[in-house]
């Protein structure tokens, strides 16, 4: 073996180690990238499903709302839906361990606080509550596990849903309805709907409720 080649002994080992290092880092990067994509896709899917869960409790509650003879009682909070899962207080635990404080849902909707809201906080003009003194004063109307809407369905529905009612800030005989859903991966969706019904003068009776606006709260 010549002296020049003698000096290059071990070079192959170095190159193989470098190549292995490069391949390992590429593989790790690929795995991280792929797994992040999977998580992103799962979050996307869960968030979409959570919006549909909020819509589901709205549709369910509309059955009771349509049948209610006096909407003022709904606005005052003296009547609640047939869909509840016990007292409007305490904590409910989701399948993934996340906790939902039912008693705090209303104050969170009214003033983004876990404790009672002051009058000034209730009347504050904000982007999502722009009506000042006519801001909605939410009352909890329906709440429970989404799965309880379909007890016979043998599918996992890991969402908790709640629905609140308030007088509409612009009056006109309409009510404001706010449906919230909480799901896996901290998914949370809110929709707010304006619902009205008229008096049918021919029969001196209330007409079926109609939806004036359906919005997702972001």
């Amino acid at each position: 073996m010549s002296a020049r080649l003698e000096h290059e002994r071990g070079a192959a080992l170095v190159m193989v180690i470098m190549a292995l290092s490069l391949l390992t880092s590429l593989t790790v990067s690929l795995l991280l990238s792929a797994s992040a994509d999977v998580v992103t896709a799962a979050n996307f899917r869960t968030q979409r499903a959570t919006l549909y869960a909020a819509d589901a409790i709205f549709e369910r509650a509309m059955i009771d709302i349509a049948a209610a003879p006096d909407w003022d009682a709904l606005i005052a909070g003296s009547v609640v839906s047939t869909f509840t899962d016990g007292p409007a207080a305490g904590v409910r635990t989701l399948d993934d361990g996340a906790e939902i404080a039912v008693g705090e849902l209303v104050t969170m909707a009214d003033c983004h606080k876990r404790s009672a809201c002051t009058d000034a906080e209730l009347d504050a003009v904000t982007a999502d509550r722009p009506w000042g003194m006519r801001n909605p004063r939410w009352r909890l109307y329906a709440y429970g596990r989404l799965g309880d809407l379909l007890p016979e369905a043998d599918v996992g529905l890991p969402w908790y849903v709640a629905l609140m009612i308030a007088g509409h800030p612009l009056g006109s005989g309409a009510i404001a309805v706010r449906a919230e859903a909480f799901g896996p991966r901290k998914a949370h969706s809110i929709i707010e709907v304006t619902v009205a019904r008229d008096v049918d003068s021919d029969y001196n009776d209330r007409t079926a409720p109609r939806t004036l606006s359906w919005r997702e709260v972001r």
Partner: protein
Amino acid sequence: MTVVGTVVAIVNPARSAFAAQSEAVDVQQRLRVGVEALMRELVAAGAGSPVGGQSGPLGDSIPPVMPFRRGASRSDPPEMFRTDTITVVSVPATAAQTTLAADRAPGATTLTLMPTAGCPDRINVCGFAPGMTVLVYDAGGAFDIFVVDAVDDGASQVTVAPPESAFTYSNGAVVVEARVRTYYLKEDPVSRSSQLMQADGGAAPDAPLLDHVAALTFDYGGASAAPIAASELADGPWLPDATAASRWDADLRRIRSVGVTLRVEAAIAALRGPAGALFRNAGVATSVHAWVPDQEIRFVISPRNLVESR
């Protein structure tokens, strides 16, 4: 030499695969962003207002979904139908909801308003502000989108930028803050790339929402998901009448669902192969290992506010 050759033979394809995988993830993420933006907008299309005689979803009075561009400016001419453009109108949660207190003559830039409900003491028209996009409409199908220039609270008036159309609105027409969004495909023939663009219906310049969109098409369905042909949405009958400069096809109020087809391509030409089923726009990839095919999704939205009955 053998070792070096082997290492290069292994590492080089791995590098290509890594680049392709990263781009594939990016393509999927851009697709999700596009879907989310369009879905959120479309699902709330037609959210209306409880004020005025036209109290109800917007679809009772005007078309909340339009297959062309409509806004305070740069609107498409009437009788237009574009497969790659959609304008969506809704009323957000806002205090700026009232009615006209006096007739508005064609071309007039001053709107005299009824005091808005729920304002603090001694304030007549709360909620309205310069720069706000407002929608004025009546029961006859006339509607206009304005941008507020100034608010004169003492006179209960707002001044709007000169509109493109010239309807007469009677006392009682609804005036509300509106969310108007136009989405369209902007193609650049030079770079052969396209962007999903968003226009806000007001004075702001259009903004790109998504790059390297290979295709975007909208189609429409009516009751029971029956397809509505493009020709039906641009052939009359016209509202508010057949001679109005900004007339619109009455069949637009039949729309109950919107189908969206969105196709996104790899941004890097070196990761796109020849044009065909996998690639709308050809790239310069020399190896199939480096191909990142276009991703296409089709989804159908039934806007909640366009449902005929609950």
